[in-house]
Every structure is written in structure tokens, then in C-alpha cells.
């Protein structure tokens, strides 16, 4: 029988997954896992804070349209060789030194993050606040190190910087530096991670970053409406692919080939085919699977998403050197979990380096967002089917009704996605109303992009921290791991590649009027 409602330092953890209020040895609950999907709840604090944070930045950046540049002090990190010329404020009207801009960015980010964590997980003490400040300073440092000329400078930058050689990874090499550091921390210092798991959470940064991508896509849509519509319409294919094709194939694989029970096959199929952690947890809850099932599947998803993130962007770049949009769409369709997928899109963007006006991260995000939209509906379909055909398997938890409620669609809908669509719609509406202020919209998009990248860097670090490879050594996980490996590398990758090719080949990766700009 389910027994929900143990709040571990304000973090929802199903009761039977804890021993005396602490995580078990086998599954130390990677910070990436958000168990709140196991209970139906109209507005999760995590989603609310993502909306406030994302839309708050969109709102402040938008004031640039009316020449009030309130975020212009934010630290715009450039590709650098001279450490005295690393940062310039992103707003052209702000004249301040690089250390002032960097300090302000760090202080603002730490304060907002502390409020976000206080709102979602409870009050921060002095030590966690100090750790949070240090974490964000380390992430900023990783971001700066990723912009070092020998790592980041592309062919376009070399002459300007006086370099003869460079790896050409662009500044987004900072993501990889953050990921590597996160992996080291997560695997060498598990006690530290467990103690500060309220802080080391990728979802805290990915959700507002997705809202910011909505605003940036809106500005791009204003500049080139036909191309933006092309990307959005092609996002429909992703929904069909994930829910109707992947899910069915992986479910069959788990049930027929690997002989898993329905209770295991549903979260496995959802985790591997839809969008990782949140889908495994939500669909597991919809069929009332034991919480343990979704937790084990989610742990596997987190681990393998890091492998995918480390392999797939480079594989895409080598297989598809002239098709960046196919590669970006492929990442959205093949890499599981929002954070890792969008991160993979960012790596793809850095590998292809299409220049200003790139649509690559926007494409990966749009595809992922479209897939996320239907989690609630898929949960309802499964819950109705299970109630009709397998009623004895839908065990009922404390205070829960066994009857399927139509409101579950809304309750399980990831509300932070509303921010993506609101920001997108707001940019389009204002842009159509004020076409003469396009320069201000571009400045707003640059500021949103700056914070989106910083949030991504923090998410990369937290993704690395959450990937505790020791989980793979646990006995009994072999068969689950095999389903995951065969499902992803034997089925999903290649169908996703084929469908991405059909729908995205030949689609330009940059807005046509910006091609050729540095």
C-alpha cells in the first residue's frame, strides 16, 4: 500500500523510501529527482518559482524595449585570452568594470536562488546559504573558464584574439567544464551531495531557463515568422513520435523480451521514451505503481542522460555535418530528461556554431516542451485503461481516491511550461504592436539569453552531481539497465534520427537576415 507524505526537509519523498527519515544506501535520491510528481497537486512550488523567476527576468529584460535597461549590468562573458577583458556588461548603456558586473551578477543570482530554495524547500541556514553562494561562484568560474580562448575561440575569433590554435568549442565549453566538475563532486563526495541536496538541483535552473527560451523564441519568431512556424509545426511530430511510437515499442520490449510486470513496464516505457524522470514518476503514479519503481527507473534515466549528453552531440555532428537542425531535433527526441536534452542542444549549437540568430537550442527546447505538454493526458489515458482492465493493480494510497479524476490532466500538467508559452506570446504580441522597437526586443533577447546560459551552466553542474554511477553496481539492476540500453541505443536513437531527418533536413539553422553576422 502506498504511504505518501513524508517531507524530508520540505522535500516530498514517499515514506517507504526512507529509513528513519533518511535516504537509503541503495538509492540516495539524486537531487535531480522531484518526487512531487507522485502526488497530484495543482501548483507545485517548483513550477511556481520557475514561473516567477523566468517571467521576472523576461519582464525586466523587456523594459529595454522602452529604453529602461534594468538588466544591463549582467555579466556578458566574452571569449578571452587576457584576464582583464573577460566580462563586459550586457547593456550598452551600462558603464562599469568587469569585476563590478561580475560581482553584481553573482550577488543577484545568489539572492534570487536563496529565495527560490526557501520558497520550494524551506528556510536556508547560514551554512547552506554559504554553500549556495560558493556553488554559484564556482559555476560562474566554470562559465568563464569555458570562454578561455584556446578552448573556445572559433576560426572567426582567432584573428581578433591573436591566436594561432584553438579547439573552437565556443564559450559553451563552460557547460562541459561545469558538468565535469559536477560529476567529480557527485561521485567522490556523496555525503556532501546528500547533505545539500536541496541546493544541488538541476530542475531549479532548467525550468526557468525553459521559460526564458520561450521569450527568445518569441523574438526570433518576430524576426522570421515563417521559419519559427516551421520549427513549431514540426514539434508536432515529436509528440506523435514520443507517445505513440516510442512508448509502445519500449513497453513491448520491457514486457515481451525482458518479461517485466506491467507495474515496471509502464514507468520504464515512459522514462525511456517520453521525458525521463517526470514522465516515469507521473505515469508510475497514474497506474499507482509502488514509488520504488519510479525511483529506480528515474535514477537510471539520470545516469544515462549524462552518457547521452556526453556522446550524442558529437555523434550528431560527425554524422550530420551539414544538418544542424536535424541534429538539434535529434537531441530533443533522443536525450531523456529536459535538462540533459536542452543541454545537448546547447552543445550541438556550440559544435555547429551557426552564429547570431541560431535556432538550434530553440529547436531542441521546443521539441522537448511539446513532448512535456502531453504528460497529463498520457497519464489520464493510462489511468483509465488500468482502472478498466487491471483494477486490482491500482493500489490506493492514503487520502487518495482510486477513481480516475479528469482534473488529474491539469494537476499533472507541468505548469512551468505555461511560462514558456506566455513569454513566447508576449514577445509576439508586443513585437507586432511595436515593430519600430525591434532593436529593444533584440537587446531583451540578448539579456534573456545571458541568464538562460548561466542557468544552463548551473544545471550542467547539478546534472553531474546527480549522476551517481554507483547506483549501476546495485544487484538486480542488470535487466533494467539492459532495457534502457536496448531501448535507447537500439530503437529510439535511430527512429529519432530518421524522423528528425524527414522533418528538419534543409531547414536553416539561423534567421536568414542574420546569417553571416558574428
Amino acid at each position: 500500500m502506498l504511504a505518501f507524505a513524508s517531507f524530508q526537509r520540505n522535500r516530498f519523498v514517499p515514506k517507504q523510501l526512507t529509513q528513519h527519515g533518511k535516504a537509503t544506501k541503495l538509492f540516495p535520491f539524486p537531487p535531480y529527482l522531484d518526487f512531487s510528481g507522485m502526488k497530484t497537486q495543482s501548483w507545485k512550488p517548483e513550477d511556481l518559482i520557475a514561473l516567477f523567476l523566468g517571467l521576472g527576468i523576461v519582464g525586466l529584460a523587456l523594459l529595454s524595449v522602452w529604453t529602461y535597461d534594468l538588466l544591463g549590468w549582467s555579466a556578458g562573458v566574452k571569449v578571452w585570452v587576457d584576464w582583464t577583458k573577460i566580462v563586459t556588461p550586457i547593456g550598452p548603456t551600462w558603464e562599469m568594470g568587469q569585476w563590478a558586473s561580475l560581482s553584481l551578477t553573482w550577488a543577484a543570482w545568489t539572492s534570487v536562488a536563496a529565495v527560490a530554495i526557501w520558497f520550494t524547500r524551506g528556510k536556508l541556514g547560514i551554512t547552506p546559504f554559504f554553500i549556495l553562494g560558493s556553488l554559484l561562484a564556482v559555476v560562474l568560474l566554470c562559465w568563464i573558464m569555458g570562454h578561455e580562448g584556446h578552448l573556445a575561440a572559433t576560426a572567426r575569433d582567432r584573428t581578433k584574439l591573436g591566436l594561432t590554435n584553438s579547439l573552437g568549442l565556443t564559450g559553451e565549453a563552460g557547460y562541459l567544464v561545469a558538468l565535469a566538475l559536477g560529476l567529480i563532486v557527485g561521485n567522490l563526495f556523496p555525503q556532501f551531495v546528500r547533505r545539500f541536496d536541496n541546493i544541488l538541483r538541476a530542475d531549479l535552473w532548467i525550468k526557468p531557463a525553459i521559460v526564458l527560451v520561450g521569450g527568445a523564441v518569441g523574438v526570433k519568431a518576430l524576426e522570421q515568422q515563417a521559419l519559427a512556424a516551421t520549427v513549431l509545426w514540426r514539434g508536432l511530430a515529436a509528440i506523435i513520435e514520443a507517445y505513440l511510437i516510442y512508448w509502445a515499442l519500449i513497453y513491448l520490449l520491457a514486457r515481451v523480451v525482458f518479461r517485466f510486470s506491467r507495474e515496471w513496464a509502464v514507468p520504464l516505457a515512459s522514462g525511456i521514451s517520453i521525458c525521463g524522470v517526470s514522465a516515469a514518476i507521473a505515469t508510475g503514479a497514474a497506474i499507482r505503481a509502488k514509488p520504488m519503481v519510479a525511483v529506480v527507473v528515474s535514477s537510471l534515466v539520470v545516469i544515462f542522460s549524462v552518457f547521452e549528453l556526453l556522446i550524442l552531440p558529437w555523434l550528431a555532428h560527425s554524422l550530420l555535418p551539414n544538418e544542424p537542425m536535424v541534429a538539434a531535433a535529434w537531441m530533443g527526441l533522443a536525450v531523456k530528461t529536459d535538462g540533459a536534452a536542452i543541454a545537448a542542444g546547447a552543445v550541438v549549437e556550440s559544435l555547429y556554431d551557426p552564429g547570431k540568430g541560431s535556432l538550434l537550442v530553440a529547436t531542441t527546447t521546443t521539441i522537448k516542451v511539446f513532448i512535456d505538454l502531453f504528460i497529463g493526458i498520457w497519464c489520464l489515458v493510462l489511468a483509465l485503461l488500468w482502472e478498466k482492465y487491471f483494477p486490482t493493480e491500482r493500489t490506493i494510497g492514503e487520502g487518495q481516491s482510486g477513481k480516475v479524476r479528469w482534473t488529474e490532466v491539469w494537476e499533472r500538467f507541468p505548469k512551468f511550461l505555461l511560462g514558456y508559452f506566455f513569454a513566447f506570446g508576449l514577445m509576439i504580441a508586443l513585437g507586432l504592436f511595436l515593430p519600430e522597437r525591434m532593436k529593444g526586443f533584440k537587446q531583451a533577447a540578448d539579456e534573456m539569453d545571458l541568464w538562460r546560459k548561466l542557468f544552463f551552466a548551473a544545471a550542467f553542474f547539478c546534472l553531474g552531481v546527480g549522476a551517481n554511477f554507483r547506483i549501476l553496481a546495485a544487484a538486480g539492476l542488470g535487466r533494467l539497465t539492459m532495457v534502457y540500453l536496448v531501448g535507447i541505443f537500439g530503437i529510439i536513437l535511430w527512429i529519432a534520427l530518421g524522423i528528425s531527418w524527414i522533418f528538419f533536413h534543409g531547414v536553416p539553422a539561423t534567421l536568414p537576415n542574420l546569417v553571416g553576422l558574428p
Partner: protein
Amino acid sequence: MIDPDNPSELPTGPAEPLARAEIGLVTVSLVVGFVLLVVLALTLPKNPTQWQPPPKAGINPPK
């Protein structure tokens, strides 16, 4: 109930065979999915503008 500290309680034994409802769900999903994808692929307009790669970025700069 599964004991998370006892790995032997992770799924090991064979499961029950596929029920008709499951076969129906999987079949309907696959058929509808493939049909919709074909319809979408045939109806979406092709984009005529081909992307051009930027100057190659590698360890050795272009001469």
C-alpha cells in the same frame, strides 16, 4: 512492498503474459502514430533555404 535496501526485491521473476488490453493499446498507438507521421510529413511545406556551414573551426586555422 519492495524493500529498497533489499536488491533481491527488484524485478527478477517472469511477469504475466500480455493482456488483450495491452496488445490493443500498443497496436493502436503504433498504427495511429505512423499514420499521423506520414500525414504530417506529406502535408508540411518543405523549407527551400539550405543551411550553409560556417568556416570550419578546428585546431588548425584556415590559411
